[in-house]
């Protein structure tokens, strides 16, 4: 049974990591993986989604910018949810497992990238030898090893880790679990703070307030808030376009003598 479970999680992991790199389709794909995971494990997909939502919420705001990978959220999320799903635990447990796993899993990627880097010389050599067969073969071997590495990681984590994780999870005292649930609920605030930092501009304050009021007082679901957000965005877009055309007309009449320097200092 455990062997099959480990195999199933391994497969989903290989799928998740493939989609992560293929066409950068990673967006939203975690949820597909969680549903897939539940189906293969014979558990409830609804349950998997609820666990997954808690994990993704904790990861929210961790962005992968410029190929600097601070956390492997795909590995952390999938293993965290898999353990919690198999052991029928609360979302807080999934989060508790997912966060440290995601940090440890970065090592695997670093090792793979190290190997890929060493192979660059081989690719270079194959081009010098004008041997496209070897070039393509090495390319696919690398893709294969990448897939196999993550499959094995998940496979062995489930096969060898489940007993330990179970012992750990059942040893958590109830008050501790309550505290964990509270902390997991508060964690998304960090992600929100992070995202605000990235998009913040004091002139956006009215929209922030509006978004909060829509949800807090009018109890609109996020979908509704987003649609209203789109409406605001469009309004500002049209205003900006209007201003732009006026500016352009002015510029052509006055002829801005092409003085880039003035333009740089002016607001």
């Amino acid at each position: 049974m455990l062997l099959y479970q480990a195999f199933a999680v391994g497969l989903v992991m290989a799928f998740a990591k493939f989609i992560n790199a293929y066409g950068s389709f990673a967006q939203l794909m975690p949820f597909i993986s969680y549903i897939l995971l539940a189906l293969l494990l014979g558990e409830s997909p609804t349950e998997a989604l609820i666990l997954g939502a808690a994990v993704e919420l904790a990861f929210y705001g961790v962005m992968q910018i410029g190929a600097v990978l601070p956390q492997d959220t795909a590995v952390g999320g999938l293993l965290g949810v898999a353990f919690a799903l198999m052991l029928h635990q609360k979302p807080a447990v999934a989060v508790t497992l997912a966060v440290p796993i995601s940090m440890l899993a970065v090592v695997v990627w670093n090792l793979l990238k190290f190997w890929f880097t060493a192979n660059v010389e081989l690719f270079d050599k194959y081009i010098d030898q004008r041997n496209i067969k070897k070039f393509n073969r090495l390319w696919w071997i690398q893709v294969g090893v990448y897939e196999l590495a993550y499959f094995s990681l998940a496979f062995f984590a489930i096969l060898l880790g489940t007993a330990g994780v179970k012992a750990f999870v059942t040893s958590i005292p109830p008050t501790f679990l309550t505290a964990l649930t509270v902390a997991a609920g508060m964690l998304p605030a960090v992600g929100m703070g992070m995202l605000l930092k990235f998009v913040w501009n004091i002139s956006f304050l009215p929209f922030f307030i509006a978004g909060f009021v829509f949800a807090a007082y009018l109890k609109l679901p996020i979908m509704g808030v987003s649609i209203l957000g789109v409406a605001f965005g469009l309004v500002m877009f049209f205003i900006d376009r209007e201003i732009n055309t006026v500016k352009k007309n002015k510029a052509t009449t006055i002829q801005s003598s092409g003085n880039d320097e003035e333009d740089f200092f002016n607001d």
Partner: protein
Amino acid sequence: MTKTTEKNNVTLTNHEKKLTKKLFWRNMFLGFNMSYTRQQGVAWDWVHQPVYREIYKNDEDKYWEAMKRNLEFFNTTPNMVGTVSGLAVSMEEENAKASEGSFDTAGISGMKIGLMGPLAGIGDTFFSGVWGLIIMGIAISFAKKGNLVVAALPLIALLPNLLIRWYGQKYGYKLGSKYIQKAVQDGIMTMFTKASSIVGVTVVGGMIATLVKFPIVYKTKINGTVFELQKVLDQILPNMMPLALAIVCFVLLRKNVSPVKVLLGVVVLGFALTFLGITGA
């Protein structure tokens, strides 16, 4: 007259269609096999290899020279590769047609190097920043309730990705860099990022109210009446504590406190308040 024909000349011949499609699908692999020294350089070569083969089908030397030349460092947001890829292929075609020594291939490298950074700037801001945040927020709010609708959401989520890949490549290939210039002159991109940032900020405001939890269970009796702190706070401002917590995190992060410290701080706060009996589940 000539101007309008030039503008509309983005229809592809059958041969070009085949090439564009092949390139589109192969470009999906740009994110594989990244290395420290070349990043996506090897992937670029693998993606474009059959296209180069076709362009230089009569010139073995030029084909291998192109392979060697394009193994160079390359790194951009994979979703944005279409524009560079389309432009690069049209330049390679010119190189193939040009007589020996009349085309400077350094221009191709120059274009790739010049565009990959700025395109990554736009791509990261939009895909990781704004779009990712909105679509993920919606998805989480469905998933939280165990709603399987979430499985259909990627269809919407992937649209901008696919459209930018396809049209970026097509316009890059057919129009060259002209459309980039036009986008700058119209200021369309700045307006677009600003508009989408507004959507983002609105959604974050909503998500703080719905997705951040700060459940206060503290109760006490004052003069015989039960005093529930959460109810009092709700009367002042619903979701006041999640808002306060998010703002504190935002301010700390803006003051360059490291995210890991803020994260740990929040966890410690959650534990401390629960042990004190103020918060609970």
